[in-house]
Structure formats: structure tokens, C-alpha cells
């Protein structure tokens, strides 16, 4: 029997598996899908906006006191949060995919979104740091005619309206690929090839004006990304940075890939396509096994502890129906989401306070164990992390990846402690 079964292979599940394995536990990760990193910008967003507020936060670590008392960051405490982020920075450096603050440690920096809006970001991968809008260096945002997921003229125009110097330029799509139909992942694979990069670099050099930095869609290699960036900058002789694209997210996929490889080296299997469909207890409050559906036959996974990291409504961890019922799909845990559809939405899609249905989740105690309304843990050997947690609307407040990194770390710590005690 293994020590820990992690259910969900998004960022929170992978981070928890990493920390638990490092603490000496035997761990397996199962997942139905692939997690939200494949869709998001690939940055670590700690906290961009307080609920209902319009202006972005500059020093999110100092504003945590303003959050809902049930917010995961409150349960963590500032010290644990800081430790989790430091560990993440160290881990990504070790992976060769270093994340760090763009300018000042402890502050959000602003990076351009694919629309040219300013995204508040806490930790950025190396390739995105050069796009820091706090720097006054002018930008040339370069796109490729016909690439449907990146629009440099729109980005540059909005950046200008916001007061950031930027211009747009276009290169022919054929520089990137001969494929008739390519998405950003295909294009990133093309740029893993040094010859392809050299051609691109030569074209970039021609359109560059003195003093400019170059913003490109986030497609600069997948497997050979760190070398690709260095290679391009060497030839062009100017700073180059990536701006995220419409999904699929190449920066997110890079992080997932290297995390999974690293987990494999630590002896952790990460198995996709396994949907948890049932579980059994010992008759009391201990989970005995979790059952998954696979193409061949149902499998039973026995572990001493279980971590639920299925990601709420976005990740498929919660389901709902037209009667207004919302439920947690593996253990049917108590949820804080209103069980009435009339309480789910507000009239505006972009309402600053967010949609109430997306704010609720699995309530947990300070040990990250799902609890009943009475405060008692639902199961003695069950923990939860990431997007499943109550008390936050991570997409609205721009804390999705921050909560994943921090609560994955904290839950693994708690699980390791409980194993040390027994």
C-alpha cells in the first residue's frame, strides 16, 4: 500500500505529490484530465485583485488580512505561504525552468495579456520576465500573419492606451511552420529546432529598432525552451520575451512536463485518464480505497492517505444539475456553494465581485482536511488542495496558480506530519 494517493494532476496535485515524495512518502497521482495549466498563462498569480476592487494589488503578501477568513491563504498563514513560494522558486530553478519575481521580490509585476491589458503576476517564468511593464523600454510586439491565437496590433494599441510604449510588427507565418494547420504547441515544437530559430532570429533582427525589446507569442520551444530563448537573444542581440496566447498554453505545458518528469525521477507515477468513480471506508471515517474507471476494468487504489486536488467546477471536481444541486464528485463532500440556481449568478459577466457559484468549494480546517459544518474532519485520512477549496474565487482574484502552489505544499506538509506521528 502506498502512503499517498493524489487525485487530480493539475498544479496543486503535482506540487503536493512533489513535496510529499520529498518528505519520504510513497506517492501516486491519478487524474481524469490534465489540469488548468494547459489553459492559463503559465505564471504564478498570487493575488491580483481583492473581491470587488478594480485596482490591482502591488504587494499582495501585505493584503492577505483583507481576504475572507475562510480564504486558503488565511488558513495557511503568511509564513507557510512564503515558504511554499520559496520552495517553488527553488524547484523550478532545479528543473531548469526558473520562476522568479519580475522586478522586486514580494511585489506583483504587470505583464501584458494577449489583449494588451496589464496582468498582475507574482512569479513569472524567465521568458516572461522581460515583458515587465514597469520597465520603460519600448516594445515591439511581433506576430505572424495568419496565426489565429495572437494579435500584436491589438496588444500594442491597448498597451499604448494604458501608457506603455509598444508597436506591432508582423512576420510571415511560413517562418514558423510549413504545416497548414498548427496550434501554439505545434509551433513551439517547430522552434525546438535550432535551424528554425535561426531563420526567425534573422527576420526579427531586421525589424528591430534600437533600444527595443521584442515581445513574441509564447511559442519559443517546448522541450528545448531555455536554450531557444538564449539562442534567439544571442543572434538578435536584444531582449526577447514571451506574451501568453489563447490556449493551449505553451508556458503551462512546459511547467507540467518538467514537473511530471521530475516526479518520475522521485518515483512518483502520474497516471492520466483515470477518473475516480467511487470509494470505500472502513465503516468509520477512514477511506480504504478509491476506485477509478479505466478502459479495461475498474481499479482500486489503496493508500494510507488521500489528497483531493480535482479543481472544483473548472477541473471537473464538482458537478451540478438544473435543480441547483452541486456536488463533489469523488467523496460527495460538503460544499459551501449555494444549492439554488437563483443564487449562482450576477447580471454581468465581468462583474468585479464575481459569480457566487464560483466562490464556494470544499471547506477545510487549518490542516487542510475537508470538514463538516460542525468543524469535524469528514475523513481522518483525506486532505484537499487547490481549486477545490472554499473561500476563494481564484480566477476572479487571480490566485489560481498561487493557491495551487501554496495549498499543495501545505497539504503535503500536513500529510507528512500525520504520517510521522503514526
Amino acid at each position, binding site marked *: 500500500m502506498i502512503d499517498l494517493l493524489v487525485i487530480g494532476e493539475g498544479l496543486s496535485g503535482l506540487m503536493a505529490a512533489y513535496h510529499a515524495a520529498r518528505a519520504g512518502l510513497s506517492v501516486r497521482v491519478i487524474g481524469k484530465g490534465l489540469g488548468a495549466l494547459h489553459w492559463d498563462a503559465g505564471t504564478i498569480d498570487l493575488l491580483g485583485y481583492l473581491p470587488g476592487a478594480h485596482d490591482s494589488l502591488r504587494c499582495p503578501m501585505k493584503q492577505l488580512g483583507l481576504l475572507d477568513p475562510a480564504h486558503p491563504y488565511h488558513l495557511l498563514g503568511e509564513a507557510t505561504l512564503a515558504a511554499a513560494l520559496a520552495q517553488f522558486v527553488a524547484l523550478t530553478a532545479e528543473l531548469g525552468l526558473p520562476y522568479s519575481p519580475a522586478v522586486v521580490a514580494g511585489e506583483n509585476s504587470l505583464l501584458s495579456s494577449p489583449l494588451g491589458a496589464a496582468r498582475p503576476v507574482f512569479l513569472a517564468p524567465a521568458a516572461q520576465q522581460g515583458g515587465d511593464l514597469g520597465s520603460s523600454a519600448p516594445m515591439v510586439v511581433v506576430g505572424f500573419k495568419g496565426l*489565429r491565437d495572437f494579435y500584436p496590433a491589438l496588444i500594442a494599441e491597448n498597451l499604448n492606451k494604458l501608457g506603455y510604449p509598444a508597436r506591432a510588427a508582423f512576420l510571415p507565418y511560413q517562418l514558423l511552420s510549413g504545416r497548414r494547420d498548427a496550434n501554439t504547441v505545434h509551433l513551439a515544437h517547430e522552434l525546438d529546432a535550432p535551424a528554425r530559430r535561426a531563420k526567425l532570429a534573422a527576420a526579427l533582427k531586421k525589424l528591430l529598432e534600437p533600444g527595443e525589446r521584442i515581445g513574441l507569442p509564447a511559442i519559443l520551444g517546448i522541450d528545448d525552451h531555455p536554450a531557444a530563448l538564449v539562442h534567439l537573444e544571442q543572434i538578435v542581440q536584444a531582449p526577447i520575451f514571451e506574451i501568453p496566447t489563447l490556449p493551449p498554453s505553451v508556458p503551462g505545458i512546459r511547467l507540467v512536463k518538467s514537473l511530471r518528469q521530475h516526479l518520475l525521477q522521485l518515483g512518483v507515477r502520474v497516471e492520466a485518464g483515470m477518473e475516480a468513480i467511487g470509494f470505500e471506508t472502513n465503516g468509520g471515517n477512514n477511506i480504504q480505497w478509491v476506485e477509478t474507471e479505466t478502459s479495461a476494468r475498474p481499479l482500486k487504489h489503496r493508500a494510507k492517505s488521500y489528497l483531493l486536488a480535482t479543481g472544483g467546477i473548472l477541473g471537473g471536481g464538482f458537478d451540478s444539475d438544473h435543480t441547483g444541486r452541486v456536488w463533489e464528485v469523488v467523496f460527495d463532500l460538503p460544499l459551501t456553494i449555494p444549492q439554488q440556481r*437563483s443564487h449562482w449568478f450576477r447580471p454581468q459577466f465581468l462583474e468585479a465581485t464575481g459569480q457566487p457559484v464560483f466562490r464556494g468549494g470544499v471547506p477545510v480546517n487549518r490542516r487542510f482536511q475537508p470538514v463538516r459544518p460542525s468543524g469535524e474532519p469528514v475523513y481522518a485520512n483525506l486532505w484537499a488542495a487547490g481549486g477545490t477549496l472554499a473561500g476563494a474565487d481564484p480566477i476572479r482574484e487571480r490566485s489560481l496558480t498561487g493557491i495551487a502552489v501554496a495549498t499543495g505544499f501545505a497539504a503535503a506538509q500536513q500529510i507528512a506530519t500525520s504520517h510521522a506521528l503514526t
Partner: protein
Amino acid sequence: MKHIETEILVIGGGATGTGVAWDAALRGFKTVLVEKRDLTHGTTGRYHGLLHSGGRYVVKDPQSARECIAENRILRRTHTHCLEETGGFFVVTPEDEGDFPDRFVAACAETGVPCNEITVAEALRREPLLNPRVSRVFEVPDGAADSFLATHATAQAARIAGAELFLYHEVVGLLVEGGEGECRVAGARVRDVANGEDVEIHAAMTISATGAWAGQLAKMAGIEVEIIPGKGTMVAMNHRLVNTVLNRCKMPADGDILVPIHTVSVIGTTDVRVTDPEHLRIEPWEVQFMLDEGDKLVPGLSKARVVRAWAGVRPLYQEGYTGASREATRQFTLLDHRERDGVAGLLTITGGKWTTFRLMAEKTVDKAVGHLGELKGCITANTPVPGVEQGFYWLGHRLHEVEAARLQGQLVCECELVTRSMLENAARNNPTVTLDDLRRDVRLGMGPCQGGFCTYRAVGILHEIGDQRSEIGAVDWNVAFLQSPAYNQDDEAGNRHLPLTIDNSPLAISSPNLLLRDFLQERWKGVTPILWGRQLKQERLDELIYLSLMNADHLPDDGGSSPLSEFYNFDTTPNENMDIPE
């Protein structure tokens, strides 16, 4: 102020109005049409897409049934490419027993609606998801109709015949001349809502084809026209659950038809009398009722993914009628306000159904001819609109064309298979004040992701082609092919191009952020009544894209509001009351 002189002024750019303009222009009248928004923005663009065989009305409203089957046959010739030959079933579910089925068969024979009883086994072979407990099945020549494309094609035909169409031109007043006894309407004062300019249009005959808004329009001439606005709510399921139109074989009631159209199946409708034709709230009981009734036709339908809900308003009219809108007649009404109210120069055409729009137009123009003098008779029944050479629409046509021409890399909207060239051509040649206009043109954002991916792409593309839009008319392009990926492969293809008249709105080009916000809100409005399960998960992904990734709620404000921002902001979130009103 601009002045325009015409013989016939048509108000309203729905099926009826464009039909009237087409007919009038073909008969040699100098014709102008004005529409306050985009073509089909009103009731025409909000209907379920059923091409009636007439079967639905054979028992209750035989005259409507006769008109439907006659027009059904005509439209198959004149608007072929806008129709899908799905066929239709009238099915007797365990709840529809009684003598209605026998009365139905007799009434079909009486009214000339072809009706063929088939075995339940045969029906199940053709529609495996049909309720196996049905006892009898009758086959009729129902079909599915694309009211967006059909209206565009009719409008194109009208332009070819010489009519001028002004979109986003709203009537702000009628030009009323004379007083007691000799009162006449001599045209209308119209506001270009995209640019804020007024135009005066002088006409010998003004025809109101404003549907549910006919009462408001008539009031401008001091005339009372009591429209019975019957709100119909429709729910689109995310799949073609059936490929044949399914009708319950009973008296027409709520939620008793399921129409397969394009990539979805639409279940409809409710019928609730409302006071405001503009802002239509969808009540939770309506959605629930539709799903419950849908389960009787296709068991398990309520568990399938729902993609959207919307409401249209029937412009029912019955002189002196005060009852429920469900019981009001579906026949159309032509009001000659000289005979009825002593006000010359104004006709109102209202009521009816999409299926009978051509007939309504014919009768209206016949009446105008009576007033304006001897001219040619109606020829619309034998005049195909542009595009019929494409043949009947079939579900796979876009996929087939994309694959044959290898256009996969061009897809801007993967759900509905919209290519970049389709989008660009529609944006260059049709008025594009909001992205919703492009949705009606090419089905942008109508699929499962409800604009999650294509909203951003469309805004980016419109922004890129912004400068080129001023060269409107430079490209030969045929609007009747606007939904064809193969036709729109490049800018060289096409036949004669006749652009719709709209002073090139600066809005779409210079306010990309407004376009984006408006369309996200427009899509949100139609999903809130049906968000749960998979579609709720989808919406959370759309939030991830537009908030977390795009930061679309913190874009610079580039244009305040569009002529439709307020319309999109209308609250359709579910309310407390789930109960069906008494």
C-alpha cells in the same frame, strides 16, 4: 439632414420586411427599407427554425395550415439553400391519447397537408432516441430553416431588384401630413444609430413590418394597434439529438416541438403574454418545463448538455382580442390604416409565421399596388433568391467544404467551422456594429464554447482589417454564400456584390475592447438561464480565458457603450420563483 425620396418605405428588417422590399422592388417600385438594428435582430432571428408543413395547425387553425403547406412548397424552390430537408414526425406519446390523432389525420387530408402514418419501428429506426413508448407516428414535410441566411438572401434579392436597405437606422417619427379627415403618412424620420445622424425619407406608401413593435410604430401616427406580444422561450441542446423535426400530436402547447437545426436541437416553446417586446426575461420554470416536455419526446433529453436559452416575441394580432397569447390566432393581419383609421399612406403587416413571410409580403404589396396604381403582379413565388444553386442545406456542408479545401488552419470558430475569410468577408460587406452581427452572419460563437475562443480571435481580426473596411465594395462577394467556407476561400471568388447601405461605422474598428465586452456579455445573457453541469464548467473555462489570461475586465475603456450595450446588459440570471404561473 439627408433627404431620400421613394415610393415604398418598409420599416423592419426581419423576414417580413425584407420579403416586402423584395416583392415591391420586383414589381418596379422604388423601395427603401430601414431596420433599427441588424437584419433579423428581432423576432426572425429568435425563432426555433421550423419550416412548417402546416401540420401543427391543421386542427386548430386550418387556414394557417393551408398557407403553411403552400409556402413550404414555394420556399423549397425560392430559398433552397436556407432549408434543411429534415422531414417531420407527429408522434403520439402516452400522454397524447384521445381522439386528437384521428382528427389530425382527417384535418391533414382536409387542408392538403401530406401526412403518412409510419410504423413505430420505422420511426425508431430513423430516430433511435425517440421515445419508444409512442403509439403512432405521422410523417409530414416539416423542415428546418436558417432564418438568418434566408433573410440575407431575400435582402440580396431585393437589392438586386433595386431596393435600398439601411441598417442600424431607427424610425424616430412618422411624417404625418394633414389633419382630421385627410391625414396621411408621408414617410419617416430615421436616425442612423451608429453615427447619430438623422435622415428624412419621403414615401408614397409606408409599410410597417415591425412585428411585435407594430403598436409602437402605429402610435407615431396616432393609431392604436393592439399587438399581443407572446413571448416564446426556446432552449438549444448541444447536439443533434434527432435529425427529424419532432412534434407532439396534440393541440399546440408549450414545449412540444424539437427542431434539429445546424449543430443543435431546439426545444420550444412557451407562450407568455408580455408587455415589453424588447427585454425578455427567461423564467426558470420555462426552462424546466421545456426540459420536462422534451423528455417526453426524447427520454433523457433533460440530462443532455444545454447550450443556450433565448426568447423571441410573436407579433400576434387579433382585433379586439384580450385572452391568452397561446390561444390567439397565428394568421397574419394586414391593416390598411386608411380604411381602418382614416390615415392614408400606411399599412401594417403583422402576425403570421416565418414560413408564411413571402405570402404576407405578397398580400401587403398587392394592397400597396391598389393604392399606388397599376404595376406588375407578384412574381416572388417563382423567383429564386441568390444562392439556391447550393442546393438544400445539409449538416455536414461546412465540414465537407473545410476538409475538401483543407481550410482547417483558417478556422476561427472551431465549434461552428467559421473560417477567417468567412469572418472577414462578412465583416467587410455586412454592417458590423457588434460582434453579434457576425454571429447572425456566420454563426460565430454559437457553439458549445459560446464565444470562449472566437471572441478574442474575431476582435483581433476585425482590428487587423479595420483599415481595409473603408474599401467596402472593392471585393466581389455574394452574401448568399456567406456561410460557405469553400466559397469564402479567398477574396477573389464570387459574383456580383451589392453592399448593404450603412455608413461605415467607426465603432467596430476603433473600439475593439467594446466589441469584446459587448459580445462576452451578449453570450453571458443567453447562458445564465441554463448554466449547470458541463456548460457551467465550460463557462468557468471562458472566465479563465477572459479574466485570468486576458484580463479583459481591465482593458482601457475605448468607447463607453454601443447602441446595443444596454440591451445586452439586461438581467437574465435565474430568479427566485420557479413556479409556473397560474
